[in-house]
């Protein structure tokens, strides 16, 4: 359905992005807070703070935001953050949900980009408004109702991307724990394809299944996991975007690891 899977490119490497910026053939989105963006950002990047997007992420509003950032159906988009790719993933996923197919994540964080001495400035680019179509992709979204029925199926794997202690304390029954930290390397937001494949295969996560990811509240950590799955070509991944916060508010069943005082090991 979308070219992400065809090309297999989930992340954009630094060199490619730099040449695309030079060619003016890319729209770069910085999802950090406005203050941080104003101080400095990757040259030509526009700012879409995640909080702004999340304040109202219904498709009509997102479409307006996308148009105002000068993105039409054909514009290649690269998203970055300074939060190991989790915030960028949530924004990328939202664009994908809207029907935008050419969106990738910068392979590293802004801090790392800066520490390498690469181009940044504090100018806000002039943006020409564009018209994007709306072609929603419900197949990449899991709602609580969908999840509740899907997780009874044998071919569905549910992945919890919060930290291990949170998982032990409480999680959606049947979920497996794959903390978001597991997905990254020291300076890349996602580990290499080969490493990711091995990690997932060890855990029994294979392309034969439908895979749903969730995290604490807004689908950032699990957004990153969604892209981790895509990076190794898993065709059928979904994001439970309202995640555990909604699940609990709806008072749906949860599960915990009983009979152990694991929190006392946590050296807080």
């Amino acid at each position, binding site marked *: 359905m979308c070219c992400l899977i065809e090309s297999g490119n989930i992340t954009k490497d630094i060199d490619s992005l730099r040449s695309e910026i030079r060619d003016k053939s890319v729209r770069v989105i910085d999802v950090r807070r406005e203050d941080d963006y104003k101080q400095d950002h990757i040259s030509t990047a526009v700012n879409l703070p995640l909080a702004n997007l999340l304040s109202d992420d219904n498709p009509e509003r997102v479409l307006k935001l996308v148009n105002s950032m000068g993105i039409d159906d054909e514009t290649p988009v690269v998203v970055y953050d300074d939060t190991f790719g989790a915030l960028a993933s949530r924004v990328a996923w939202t664009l994908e949900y809207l029907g935008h197919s050419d969106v990738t994540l910068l392979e590293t964080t802004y801090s790392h980009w800066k520490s390498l001495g690469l181009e940044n400035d504090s100018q806000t680019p002039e943006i020409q408004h564009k018209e994007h179509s709306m072609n929603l992709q419900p197949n990449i979204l899991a709602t609580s109702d969908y999840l509740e029925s899907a997780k009874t199926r044998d071919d569905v794997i549910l992945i919890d991307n919060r*930290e*291990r*202690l949170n998982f*032990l304390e409480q999680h959606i029954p049947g979920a*497996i*724990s794959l*903390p978001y*930290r*597991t997905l990254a390397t*020291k300076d890349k937001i996602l580990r290499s394809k080969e490493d990711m494949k*091995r*990690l997932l295969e*060890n*855990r*029994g996560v294979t392309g034969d299944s439908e895979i749903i990811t969730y995290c604490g509240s807004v689908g950032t950590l699990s957004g990153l996991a969604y892209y981790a799955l895509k990076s190794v070509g898993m065709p059928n991944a979904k994001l439970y975007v309202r995640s555990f916060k909604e699940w609990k508010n709806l008072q749906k069943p949860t599960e915990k*690891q*009983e*009979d*152990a*005082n*694991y*929190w*006392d*090991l*946590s*050296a*807080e």
Partner: protein
Amino acid sequence: MTISDLKQSASDFAKSKINWARIEEADNFAKTVKLFRQGKYDADSFRRFRLQHGAYGTRMTGDYAMVRVKLPAGEIYPNQFEKLSQLSEQYSIGSAHFSTRENIQLHWVILEDVSEIFRGLTEVGLTSREACGNSVRNVMCSPLSGVCPDEEFDSTPYALATARFFLRNPMAQNLPRKFKFNFTCCEKHGMVRMVDVGLIPQIREMDGTSQRGFKIFLGGGLGNKSFVGHQLEEFTPEEDLLYTSIAVVRIFDRLGDRKNLARNRMRYLVNDMGWEKFQNLVFKERAVVRATQSVITKLEVDHTPNEIKRPIRITDESGGTIPDGYARWFKTNTVKQTQSDYRSVFITLEAGDVTASQLNALADIIREFSSEGKARCGFVQNVALRYVHEGDLPRLYSKLLEVGLAKSGALTMTAPIGCSGTTSCNLALTNSHRLAKEIQRKFLELKLDEDDDLSDSSIKISGCPNSCGQHGIATIGFFGGGGRVGKDMYPNYQMSLGGRSDGDTMLGQTCLRVPAKRVITVILKIIEIFKQNKKSDDTLKSWIHRIVSGNEDSDIKSINDIKKMLDPLIIPPTKEDDPDFYLDYGSDTSYHTKTGKGECAA
């Protein structure tokens, strides 16, 4: 050893010279886990395999493991700290745990992820191989070896060589039970009499030349039943070290009890056989080993001296104010080294727990402050930073404060040992881990670390009778169990007094059972009784030692006299009066003893 003030660039920071890891073991482990899950590998064989590779089972679940990473001779390098930090965030609970045997443990690891940890460890030359199971466990060495004012020579190279010799050695893959070597620096430090093989370096003058060797103790150990080890002979020359080690391992392998799980450590063999008979057997076996192996089998002892370079200061902060608490920390956490101008700094962790970010910080701190560029694990779930120049101590203290590692009392009674207890162990009956933390917090608040009368005493807590918390050698020791009032259970500890592991090693004597929520009160009461009855130069340790040895002449003459004074404090209140009494530390649900199958003996 050469001490110089040569400048150091970022690239030549020390890295381990020995690579303990094998990448193929990661692949093999991953494959075996898959086969096991597919039912193609039976549970018993898999458990043995898992333990041999250093992955323990976890409380009440087969889905999680604890990975125990060995740090042979206790040495740990900055890049290893950084890797462990990363692994703890990725596969564990964002923290790691220092054990009493110079291992770092990662808990609550998903079994399928264990091989990924192995893979990460290979990047920094570490392994967990033979950290569990019936093998030669991590070879320990005193954190002060090489710097201790009382030692005759540094035994670290011998500990490393011994670890190297036995790791993956077929002779040590299927012993009747686990087997432990402890090297130390001197009589005062370490616990050479409470281990299968304990070694103190010793120099003998003969015909005008001095010869290196060891005082070797055999057959000691802590456990459900503990024994004090016996000295093999007056002096064992260094060339006999390996032959003696092989001889002892062979005898144990041949004669050790492989059937009775509860009695198969070597100390039972020694005890059943009688020391003299065992001793003779060792001499005979050693003669055979020497005769048959002496040409081909040598211990590879690396005598290259450590490079000692005071790290250069990147910024000059001289003239800065010394933060509050420095004097207290200096007094209770640092010791003078043989090498002038240098001190060793002990960092106390609450019951051995350290966060991922603290592990990272430690890497930087070593690079910035240790002139030997590495750290050593201590004996009591702590870390030692050695070769810190005295002039750098205030700055180091500030750095430690910033990352929450500047707790005082590291070398005093206020830093208790607590095994992992019900936080992750299948056998635990109580949360000994949390109790140790509670005691430390309370006693530091009361500033008991500053009391010279208490500093050479120790508190050690196990969550069950099996002694992982080493309660038997504590001045005040505890092991967990359950107490009962009618139908209601409460967490309870058996308390023993007077244990020690130095030259006068003895096991603590049972005093009485203390409910978990009365442990702190009872210890404070003991201190109070001691203060009322002590002689002027007494410490708590020396006073208790006289009592348990029957040599005390004041009003309090026996353990029983102490018991009588404590009895009123341990009477259980009704559940209505004090519901908290019936809860263990760290738990808000009613207490019950619940255990799974132990794996120590698997």
